[in-house]
C-alpha cells in the first residue's frame, strides 16, 4: 500500500522539521523559520525515497504499538546484556552456538530491518543474513533447530509489533 505524493511530502517535511528542532534546541523564530524553509526544500528532494506510507505512519494504532514497543524492547536489551554478562563471567562458559534458520511473514523491507535489528539486540541472537523471508540467526545457545519453533522463540514477539508498526 503506497500513499499519495502529497501525504509522503508532508510526512517527510514533518519528520525533518522535528529533527531540526531537536538538533538546534532553540525556539528563536529565526531558527524555526530557517528550519521550516530547509525541511520544505529537503523534503521536496527526497520524499519519494524516504517513505512509502506517508502520513499513514501517524495513525493512532501504529503510534500506540510503537510506544508500547519501546519499553518492551529496552527491557529485552537489558536482559540481553545480563545474559552476555552471565555467559562471560561464569567459569564454564555455558555456550552452545550455531546458526539456525527462521522464517518471517513480514513483507516490507523496513519491517524486516526492524525485526532483524530487534533480534540482534535481544538475548543470545545475532542476525547473519536475510534473503526474502528467510533469516539466518547465530544463536549463542541453540535450543531448537526446527524452523517453526525457532521462528516463534526468536522472532515471534517482535514480529507481532513490526506487523502493526511498519506494514
Amino acid at each position, binding site marked *: 500500500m503506497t500513499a499519495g505524493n502529497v501525504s509522503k511530502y508532508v510526512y517527510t517535511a514533518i519528520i525533518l522539521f522535528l*529533527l531540526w528542532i*531537536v*538538533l538546534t*534546541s532553540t525556539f528563536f523564530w529565526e531558527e524555526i523559520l530557517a528550519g521550516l524553509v530547509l525541511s520544505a526544500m529537503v523534503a521536496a528532494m527526497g520524499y519519494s525515497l524516504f517513505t512509502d506510507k506517508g502520513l499513514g505512519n501517524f495513525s493512532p494504532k501504529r503510534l500506540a504499538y510503537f510506544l508500547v514497543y519501546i519499553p518492551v524492547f529496552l527491557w529485552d*536489551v*537489558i536482559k*540481553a*546484556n545480563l545474559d*552476555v*554478562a552471565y*555467559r*562471560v*563471567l561464569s567459569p564454564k*562458559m555455558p*555456550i*552452545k*552456538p*550455531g*546458526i*539456525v*534458520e527462521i522464517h518471517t511473514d513480514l513483507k516490507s523491507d523496513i519491517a524486516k530491518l526492524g525485526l*532483524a*535489528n530487534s533480534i*540482534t*539486540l535481544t538475548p*543470545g*541472537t*545475532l*542476525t*547473519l*543474513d536475510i*534473503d526474502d523471508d*528467510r533469516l*539466518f540467526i*547465530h544463536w*549463542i545457545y*541453540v535450543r531448537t*533447530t526446527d524452523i517453526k519453533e525457532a521462528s516463534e522463540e526468536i522472532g515471534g514477539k517482535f514480529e507481532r509489533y513490526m506487523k502493526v508498526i511498519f506494514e
Partner: protein
Amino acid sequence: MNFYTVLEYIGMFLVFVGALFLFLGALGIFRLPDVYNRLQAGTKATTLGAFGAIIGIGLMRPEWLPKAILIAVFILMTNPISSHALARASYRRGIKLWDRSVVDRYGPYLREKEEKEGKR
C-alpha cells in the same frame, strides 16, 4: 538537594552502568571462542554501554538531553547493522565457526544458492 543534583546523580549512575557493560563486552571479546560469539558480546554490550553513557551525560547536562537521546537512538538503529555486515562478511570470507558449534544452516544455503546461479 534540588532537582538538578538528583538528575546529576542519576546521570552518574547511568554512566557507571554503561562503563560496566562496556567492560563486560570487552571481557566477552577476550573470552569467547570465535568471531560470531565475540560479535554477540560486542554488539549488545557496546549498544547498552554507549546508550547508558550518552543518556547519563544528557541527564547531567539537561540542556544536552534532546541531542543525547537522538544520538542514542541512532546508535540503537545502526549498531546491529554493522555487526550483521561484519558477521556476514566473515562467513563469506570463509572464517569457520567454533568446532563445538552444534548446527550451521547458513553454509548449505550458500552452496545451494551458488549451484543455482552456476546453472543459469
